[in-house]
C-alpha cells in the first residue's frame, strides 16, 4: 500500500550554498513555491494584459481576485488598511495557489509543511507587532487592556489577552498546516485503498468503487478546504492587522 506520508517528502534538487554547517538546497518544495509565484504572476499580469473595458474570462479572474481581497481588507481594516493590501493579497494568492496546486495528483503541497505555515504566520505576527508599535508607540499595549473591565479582574484579563496574542502565530499556522496535511493524508489513504483492493481480483475491483467514490468526494472537499484555509488565513491576517492599526478595542 502506498505510503500516505511519502507525498510530503522533501527532495533536494540542487545545492544553493551553506549557512554554517546547514546546507541550503533548492528542493521540490522550493520549485512548487516558485511555481505558485509564477502562477499568481501569470494570472495577474497575463489577466490584466488586455486592459479591456469589457473583461475576458481570464481578465475577470484577475479582477475578481483583486476585488475579493480588496473588499476583505477594506471591510475588516478600513480604508487606511489598504496600505497592507499588497501584503494580504500576496498572502492570499500564495496560499490559495499552493493549496490548489497541491490537490493535483503527484504534486507537492507547500503549505502542508509546518515551517512554511509558521513562516507565513510569523510574518503576519511580526508585521502586526512592529507596525503596531511604530504606529501607536506604547499605546499599542492598550490592546491587552480592554475597556470597561472592572479593575479587580483587569490583571487576569490582561494576562489572558497577552497569552492569546502570543498564541496567535501558533493557531494561525497550525490551522493551515494541519488542514492541508490531514486532508492530503486522508485522500492518499482512501486512494491507496483503491489500488490495494483492485489488486485482489474481480471482487476487489468491484469493491474499490467505494473508496474511489470517497476519494472523489474528498477531492471536492479538499478544493473547498484549500480555498477556505487561504480565506481564513487572510481574514485572520486582516483582523490581526486591524489590531495593529486600532489597538484600543
Amino acid at each position, binding site marked *: *500500500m*502506498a*505510503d500516505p*506520508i*511519502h507525498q*510530503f*517528502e*522533501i*527532495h*533536494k534538487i540542487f*545545492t*544553493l550554498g551553506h*549557512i554554517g*554547517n*546547514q*546546507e*541550503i*538546497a*533548492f*528542493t521540490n*518544495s*522550493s520549485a512548487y*513555491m*516558485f511555481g*505558485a*509565484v509564477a502562477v*499568481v*504572476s501569470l494570472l*495577474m*499580469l497575463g*489577466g*490584466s494584459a488586455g*486592459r*479591456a*473595458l469589457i*473583461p475576458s474570462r481570464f*481578465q475577470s479572474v*484577475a*479582477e475578481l481576485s*483583486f*476585488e475579493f481581497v480588496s473588499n476583505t481588507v477594506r471591510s475588516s481594516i478600513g480604508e487606511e488598511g489598504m496600505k497592507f*493590501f*499588497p*501584503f494580504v*493579497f*500576496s498572502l492570499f*494568492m*500564495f496560499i490559495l495557489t499552493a493549496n490548489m496546486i497541491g490537490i493535483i495528483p503527484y504534486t507537492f503541497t507547500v503549505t*502542508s*509543511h*509546518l*515551517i*512554511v505555515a509558521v*513562516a507565513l504566520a510569523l*510574518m503576519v505576527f511580526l508585521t502586526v507587532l512592529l507596525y503596531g508599535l511604530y504606529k501607536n508607540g506604547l499605546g499599542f499595549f492598550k490592546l491587552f487592556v480592554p475597556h470597561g473591565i472592572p479593575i479587580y479582574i483587569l490583571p487576569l484579563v490582561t494576562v489572558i489577552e497577552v497569552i492569546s496574542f502570543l498564541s496567535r502565530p501558533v493557531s494561525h499556522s497550525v490551522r493551515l*498546516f494541519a488542514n492541508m*496535511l490531514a486532508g492530503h493524508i486522508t485522500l492518499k489513504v482512501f486512494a491507496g485503498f483503491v489500488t490495494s483492493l483492485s489488486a485482489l481480483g474481480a471482487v476487489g475491483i468491484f469493491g474499490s468503487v467505494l473508496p474511489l467514490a470517497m476519494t472523489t468526494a474528498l477531492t471536492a472537499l479538499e478544493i473547498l478546504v484549500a480555498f477556505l484555509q487561504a480565506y481564513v488565513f487572510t481574514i485572520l491576517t486582516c483582523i490581526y492587522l486591524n489590531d495593529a492599526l486600532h489597538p484600543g478595542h
Partner: protein
Amino acid sequence: MAEGQGKSKGADHGTAAHTAADGGHKASFPPFESNTFASQLVSFAIAFGLLYLIVSRLALPRVGGVLAARQQVLDTDLNEAAKLKADSDAALKAYETELANARAKAQAMATEVREKLNAEQEAAKAKLEESLATKLAAAEQTIATTRATAMGNVHSIAADTASAIVERLTGISPDAGAVNAALDASVKG
C-alpha cells in the same frame, strides 16, 4: 509498508546533507524534519519576496488601474445618461409649457372673437331697438297730436252744440267764454 520505506530511503539519499544531521535514522515525519527547515525558509523568503514585489509593483497597480478606468468610464457614461435624461425632461417640459400656452392663447382668441361677435350683435340689437323706439315715439307723437287735434275739434263742436242748444232753449246766444268755462268744468268733473 516496505515500499514506503524504500521510498523514504530514496528520499534520504536525495537529501544526504539533510539526513546527515538527522543521524541517518529512519525517515521521520517529513513536515517535522527540522534539517529541511532552513532550505524551505530561504526558498520561501525569496519566493514570497518576489511575489510581493511583482504583486505590489506590477500586478495590483495594473489591475487596479483597469478597474479604476472602467469605473471612470461607467461614471462618465452614467453622468452623460443623466444629463441626456435631464435634457429630454426639460424638452418635454418646454413642449408641455408651449402646448399649454398655445391652448390658452387659442382659448383667449376664441373668447375674444365670441365677445366681439356678442358685442356687435348687442350693438345691432340696441340700434334696432333704438330705431324701433324712435319710430314708436314718433308714432305715439302722431297719435297724440291727432288725438289732441281731434279732442280740440270735439271741444269746439261741443261748444258750438252747447251754444246752439242754449240759444234754442233760451233764445239767448250764450257768451262764448262762459260756454267754454262750463265745458272745461264738465270735462274736468
